[in-house]
């Protein structure tokens, strides 16, 4: 098929997917059951929840407002004294509070909103042992829970400065508390508070009588500050991601079942499979429809949730301060999550033969999906590399962090990319199973069908296989990429370990997956000998691209960023100097270059090329290549995106022209190797008059020399014959690429 007709087809399939999606949407949205979950549920659920929440808060506080404490005393007389003291102490305490200014008010957010400030009311229910007929002692009354507090009063010698004193005798208050009882504790604190007030007043009076001023060696002034860790102040916010995730799921479940298992049950599946439309196109239409409904549901839920919060005046309590960027980030995250979950649902419901069966499959999924919700409620759980690539958990945690306003951009990027890739993976699985004869006619087990190897081998991996592989590689790239630097060994060993990780990620995993999918290894990874002239072209490009890549990088960087990077590099470089050159070359040039070529060009681009135009395959694999280079251990190096993507485009063109991954490998190894050698011999080069240091532009002679060499290489690539006869008609498209590349670099 020619390039042009291919691109026309891809445009066609795009609009066709949209037309299919509108039909699916029309069908779903007319269904009353969808409307129920979409509109009525959120409209009813949130106001109801809101009312309950509000009532709950009020109830709790009204309980707080009168605390009833049962107090046991020995005699009737003691009861009377206790009651008197409590009343007097209470009055004095209130008076003191009134006079003392600057007393920090209890600023509990919930209390604020509901207008309930200050101390709760205490009601002491006093009884004496005489009244009680149980024959228990005061201690037993307390430990047996008849009383919360026990008080024993004994008169003590009046030691008022040695003079006899008028008025009631001094008393020793022995207070008995029950261990582990909050009520007992509160009561004890209140009793001592009131007694303190009486004592204070007495001392004040004495001072007053003796005309002494009230001086204290230590005075206290308290100020209450709001916590910087907002997680504690608004714990209610952690529920929102959970609710959103659940609601997005609820919205997607019914359409997903209806559009897959439902087709079969209605007998309309055969209409679809009898049509000349690829399963992926059919599924794409369904995916768009399910996603739309999921998003509509999520939106409806959000609107209803916020409306309820505002109506009840709870928005401050629950949301805190929510900025516009935060809102955008949350929305992006939700869209990506909805896409991911819709794809997962479709892949599962595609296996089912009926509505009932689909529901049976989905129950465990929903239960599994609930567990990540627990994570969001754990305030001390920090998102890390592994959690960021764990499906569902990453979304819930990221949403929590977003709403709390403490988010790392790196983690946000990782969560987004991994979720998108998992979605693609799930769609690939769905396309494999949807409408397959095993599901249609029951010629095999359905769930096991997912893992069945294809019977026939193929030359090139299908995009489903390569995209699934990309999802796996990306997750492991995040998890395994940081392992070498965490090893407690010398830098040389760490570097070699990093090389091994590259080998594992970009060679071993793709080979295993391709082997499983019965992809022929030589063809599937473009491992073939190219025509001889591609070797000199690769050598020329490998030797002459770096000055331009370097210049592009410099022109992108801002001054601040350069300072920042300098610091990062200097720390690293100091140690790097001690590493032998060969280790650096093997681990930083040969291993990553060869492995990355193997995966990104040999496998990925090759696989995309089988379905798409040359330019499409080159650009998409180059952008993916660029994205992988942005994430470096614990930082996002955005400035690497453009140079790496451009490099990917050059390498992609070489693959497209030569039909082999080998010249690209040579080019890539040479390019990386030269950069390392240049930095290794930087001082020597400077002495030779070639000044290469951070931020400085390269001498014109170097750039001109490189340009000449690039021109020769481009001529070699552009004018020589093509290896693959089916690409002969693509020459025009590729030439324009070379030109664009040349312009970008010059």
């Amino acid at each position, binding site marked *: 098929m020619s390039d042009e007709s291919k691109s026309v087809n891809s445009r*066609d399939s795009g609009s*066709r997917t949209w*037309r*299919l999606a509108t*039909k699916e949407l*029309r*069908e*779903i949205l*007319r*269904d009353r059951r969808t409307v129920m979950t979409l509109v009525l549920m959120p409209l009813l659920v949130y106001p109801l929840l809101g009312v309950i929440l509000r009532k709950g808060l009020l109830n709790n506080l009204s309980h707080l407002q009168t605390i009833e404490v049962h107090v046991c005393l020995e005699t009737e007389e003691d009861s009377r004294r206790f009651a008197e003291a409590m009343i007097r102490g209470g009055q004095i305490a209130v008076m003191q509070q009134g006079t003392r200014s600057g007393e920090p008010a209890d600023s509990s957010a919930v209390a604020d909103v509901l207008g309930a400030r200050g101390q709760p009311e205490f009601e002491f229910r006093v009884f004496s042992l005489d009244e009680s007929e149980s024959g228990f002692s005061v201690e037993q009354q307390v430990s047996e829970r008849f009383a919360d507090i026990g008080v024993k009063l004994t008169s003590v010698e009046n030691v008022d400065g040695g003079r006899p004193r008028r008025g009631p005798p001094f008393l020793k208050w022995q207070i008995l508390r029950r261990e582990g009882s909050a009520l007992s504790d509160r009561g004890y604190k209140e009793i001592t508070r009131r007694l303190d007030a009486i004592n204070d007043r007495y001392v004040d009076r004495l001072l007053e009588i003796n005309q002494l001023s009230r001086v204290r060696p230590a005075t206290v002034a308290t100020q209450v500050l709001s916590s910087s860790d907002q997680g504690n102040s608004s714990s209610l916010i952690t529920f929102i991601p959970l609710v959103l995730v659940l609601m997005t799921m609820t919205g997607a479940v019914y359409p997903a079942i209806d559009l897959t298992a439902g087709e079969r049950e*209605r*007998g*309309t*599946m*055969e*209409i*679809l*499979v*009898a*049509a*000349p*439309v690829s399963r992926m196109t059919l599924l794409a239409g369904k995916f768009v429809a399910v996603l739309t409904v999921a998003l509509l549901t999520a939106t409806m839920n959000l609107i209803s949730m916020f409306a309820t919060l505002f109506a009840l005046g709870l928005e401050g309590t629950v949301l805190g301060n929510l900025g516009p960027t935060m809102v955008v980030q949350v929305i992006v995250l939700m869209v990506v999550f909805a896409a991911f979950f819709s794809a997962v649902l479709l892949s599962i419901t595609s296996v089912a033969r009926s509505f009932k069966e689909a529901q049976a499959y989905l129950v465990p999924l929903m239960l599994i999906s609930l567990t990540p919700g627990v994570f969001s409620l754990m305030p001390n759980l920090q998102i890390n590399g592994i959690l960021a690539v764990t499906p569902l958990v990453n979304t819930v945690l990221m949403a929590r962090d977003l709403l709390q306003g403490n988010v790392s951009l790196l983690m946000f990027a990782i969560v987004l990319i991994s979720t998108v890739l998992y979605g693609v993976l799930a769609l690939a699985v769905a396309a494999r199973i949807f409408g397959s*004869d095993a599901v*249609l*006619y029951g*010629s*095999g*087990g359905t769930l096991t069908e997912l893992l069945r190897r294809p019977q026939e081998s193929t030359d090139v991996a299908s995009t489903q296989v390569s995209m699934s592989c990309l999802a796996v590689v990306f997750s492991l790239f995040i998890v395994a990429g940081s392992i070498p630097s965490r090893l407690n060994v010398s830098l040389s060993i760490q570097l070699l370990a990093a090389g091994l990780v590259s080998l594992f990620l970009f060679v071993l995993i793709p080979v295993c997956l391709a082997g499983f999918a019965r992809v022929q290894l030589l063809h599937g990874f473009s491992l073939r000998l190219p025509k001889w002239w591609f070797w000199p072209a690769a050598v020329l490009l490998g030797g002459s691209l770096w000055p331009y890549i370097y210049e592009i990088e410099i022109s992108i960087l801002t001054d601040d960023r350069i300072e920042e990077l300098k610091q990062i590099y200097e720390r690293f470089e100091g140690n790097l100097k001690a590493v032998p050159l060969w280790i650096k070359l093997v681990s930083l040039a040969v291993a990553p270059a060869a492995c990355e070529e193997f995966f990104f060009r040999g496998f990925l681009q090759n696989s995309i090329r089988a379905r798409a135009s040359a330019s499409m395959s080159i650009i998409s694999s180059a952008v993916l290549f660029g994205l992988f280079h942005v994430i470096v251990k614990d930082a996002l190096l955005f400035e690497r995106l453009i140079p790496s993507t451009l490099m990917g485009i050059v390498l992609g063109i070489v693959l497209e022209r030569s039909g082999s991954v080998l010249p690209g490998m040579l080019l890539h190894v040479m390019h990386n190797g030269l950069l390392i050698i240049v930095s290794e011999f930087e001082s020597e080069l400077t002495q030779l008059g070639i000044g290469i240091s951070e931020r400085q532009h390269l001498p014109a002679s170097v750039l001109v020399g490189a340009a000449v060499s690039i021109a020769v290489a481009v001529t070699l690539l552009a004018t020589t014959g093509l290896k693959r006869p089916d690409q002969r008609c693509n020459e025009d498209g590729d030439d324009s690429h070379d030109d664009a590349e040349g312009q970008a670099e010059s």
Partner: protein
Amino acid sequence: MLQDGRLDFSDQRGSSPLITVSRLTKRFPLSDGSVVTAVEDVSFSVNRGEVFGLLGPNGAGKTTTLRMMLGLLQPSAGDSSIDGVSVMDNPDQIKRLIGFVSTSVGVYQWLTPREMLSFVADLYDVSPAAQAERIERLADVLDFREYIDRRCGVLSTGQKQRVNLARALMHDPPVMLLDEPTRGLDVVGSQVVFEYLQLLRSQKKAVIICTHRLDEAERFADRFGLLHQGRLQHCGTLAELQSTTHEHSLTEMFVNLLKTSKAAICFDA
């Protein structure tokens, strides 16, 4: 008709046939490791403007044969081609050449016949202008204009069947495959199918109709293939079959066939 010791029912009269099925075989592996042969070595051909009845009791392999012809099932051996296009080499192209009416009267409950037909036309890449024109024409021919804008969920079985028959013609294919089109229909419904076949015949389409209702088949089809236990036992016009089997009606032929194979299979005809 005997080649390599096998029966070959390819039609060798006159011009080259539109549909050629040659030695089509399908084996299903079972989970216990054994293999069931659903269709074995079936060959026949159908010309333009001809209605070919593929007859047999339930489980004879009729539907499996159709599914292989349509590219929904991969044949274990043999091939089927339409106008020289092989289903093995070019399944997508084959699907464009075939209109398929399946046993189940599948309609989308929440779409109207008009919406459903234009959706199907979209699947076959029919231009919007052609879609509108064809829907109008089919609404008249198959007489469903009255309820063309009602949603399918409220239509009767017979009405759904009309929509379904129209659906298969939306991309104007040269070949029609009908799998038990009269199942669950009353006399009026069967009559609609009969008229539909007349229409297809007049449009010079090559038609294969699968049915186990032999009385109907005699009325519907020009030529017949008698399928039993996955094998094509007899093939030809009614007169040819009568002369080879010495039986008068298709039913008698089948009863005879069953007797000889001693298979206890019930007909619902």
